[in-house]
């Protein structure tokens, strides 16, 4: 996993609530057996029409917006547990997603892949959307060590929460599996002492 410390970038707005993982990566693209290449089908059916022509009205096809931060409406990533959704977003080139809240499984998957989910309150989210609308070249800074999200356009900075352990993992690029493997003795001791039914 790639470490995440600090990022300054323009942002891509997706002001839609309840974006589900079937939109992020439709099921028909889940037949792959590796983790690579999902970015080209990110938001496939919003991004391309039936004839596979880019839909001009979709934000990823707009020449106006670009950046490594995706800003989306509430409850981003609801639905299926497919980690392919996090892989697709990361593979496309986003390093962080900002929303007022995330679906639990998606959030976990993102964190396990170096994609930072940043939760801000609904007012801050609205302000971010307004800032991008006014100036698509507006820049934002995410500082993971300080847990701050800064709107460089307005100068306002907001704190975001993240689990202390996950923060350390992201900053250093550590996977949970390395940690869990280091706990093998405790796991075996747990198995030995428990009574199972």
């Amino acid at each position, binding site marked *: 996993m790639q470490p995440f410390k600090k990022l300054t970038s323009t942002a891509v707005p997706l*002001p*839609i*609530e*309840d974006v*589900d993982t*079937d*939109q992020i990566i*439709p*099921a*028909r693209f*889940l*037949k*792959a*057996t*590796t*983790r690579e290449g999902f970015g080209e089908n990110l938001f496939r*059916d919003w991004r391309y029409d*039936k004839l596979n022509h880019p839909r001009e009205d979709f934000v990823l096809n707009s020449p106006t917006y670009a950046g490594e931060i995706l800003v989306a*409406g*509430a*409850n981003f990533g*609801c*639905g*299926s*547990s*497919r*980690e*392919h959704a*996090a892989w697709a977003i990361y593979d496309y080139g986003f390093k962080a997603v900002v929303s007022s*809240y995330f*679906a*639990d*499984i998606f959030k*976990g*998957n993102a964190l*396990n*892949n170096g994609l930072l989910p940043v939760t801000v309150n609904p007012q801050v989210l609205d302000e971010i959307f307004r800032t991008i609308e006014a100036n698509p070249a507006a820049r934002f800074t995410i500082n993971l060590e300080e847990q701050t999200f800064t709107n460089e356009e307005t100068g306002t900075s907001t704190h975001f929460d993240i*689990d*202390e*352990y*996950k*923060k350390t993992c992201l900053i250093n690029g550590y*996977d*949970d*599996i390395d*940690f*869990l*493997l280091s*706990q*093998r003795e*405790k*796991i075996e001791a*747990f*198995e030995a002492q*428990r009574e*199972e*039914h």
Partner: protein
Amino acid sequence: MPTLFDKVWDAHVVTSVPGGAQVLYIDKHLIHEVTSPQAFNGLRQRGIPIFRRDRIVATADHNVPTKDQDKPIAEPLSRKQVNMLTTNCEEFGVELYGLGHPYQGIVHVIGPELGITRPGITMVCGDSHTSTHGAFGAIAFGIGTSQVEQVMATQCVLMEKPKKMRISVDGDLQPGVTAKDIILYIISQLGTGGGTGHFVEYAGTAIQRLSMEGRMTICNMSIEMGARGGLISPDETTFAYMQGREFAPQGAEWDAAVKYWRTLPTDADAVFDAEYHFRAEDIPPMITYGTNPGMGMGVTERIPTESEIHGQATLKKSMEYMGLELGNKMEGMPIDYVFIGSCTNSRVEDLRLAAGLIKGKKIHENVTGIVVPGSQQVARQAIAEGLDRVFTDAGFEFRGAGCSACLGMNEDKIPAGRYCVSTSNRNFEGRQGPGARTILASPLTAAAAAVSGRIVDVRELH
């Protein structure tokens, strides 16, 4: 003081990590072809074996055809993925109920019917509907592929203990109202993110009176309101369902297990982080009108207008996709397809319910109907009871087991622009195929729609 959830969770904590996360021991891990290949690859790259092979069961469900299951899979990518599950299971020594095996089926149907699912255990699967198994009083939840790999390597996941919510439904259900209507009603009230961060316990007399299959339907859709999982206190109904199943405990082991399971229900003085109460009498047969499961309403109601709904910025987009108008009724509206299946409603009771309404009737000439049993065992039982004939005589296709048109990964797709009344769990855009328009409903409402060719209120057919 503790809730059912507390009792099961706390009994599985191996250790806690500074910051709040806990290492949670997993008793049973179910895997399938779609979310496991990258996990097996990860083990291979790290050069580590599976830690506890006997705690893993694999099946092929998401990507399998439901026709000609005895022949090699025609679609090359699907064939490759299903074959990869077979070779991975052989290489790593995992028990596989693959295509053609008498136990094959949707992972959340076979776990309970084989007696793998038990009260008081922890279960995971790389599938969000793993919450189904909570019906037995287990902690069961969906995980991503990185976590599938972690569980393979260590039999543990690392996560913070979710908050606790209780949803009570008391009273008597109206005739024609099923478990599916209860959960669609609850989700319509709480919204698609209303359960985020929580594990939900379903309680109350209307829940207690449900069969195990009805309880599974309820717990199955917990994820559709954003909950991490759902569960129900085990009781005599649970034990009666489990006794004698293939992998259920037997003899003295059974007695000891039941004794333990009786200690699991939530204590009378337990406190939840959130509580909701609903009256069973208030629940009508439900349908969905939009593109998430929270957009549901009684079958005779009209679609809300924007002013009636808060926080539904996607409502307009939804209506455009569905080809529907805000403020209109859907009752009487013509439909094109009926799909009876999925991990929500493909068990034998679901098929009996639908067949009971269909028996002696024909499906409407404009409707294509398919029935996909949840497992080989369900299919055999349905055939033994003659249910398959009821469906085929009416004009339905009766297929082999799999996830099928619930998610349209195989060739069972609904064409663009067509309306499908579906007993599945998600009405997301494109879920049943690009452009497909899904209306979620109970098996009874789906059966009624099939014979009348329209959305109808099953209470009027009774």
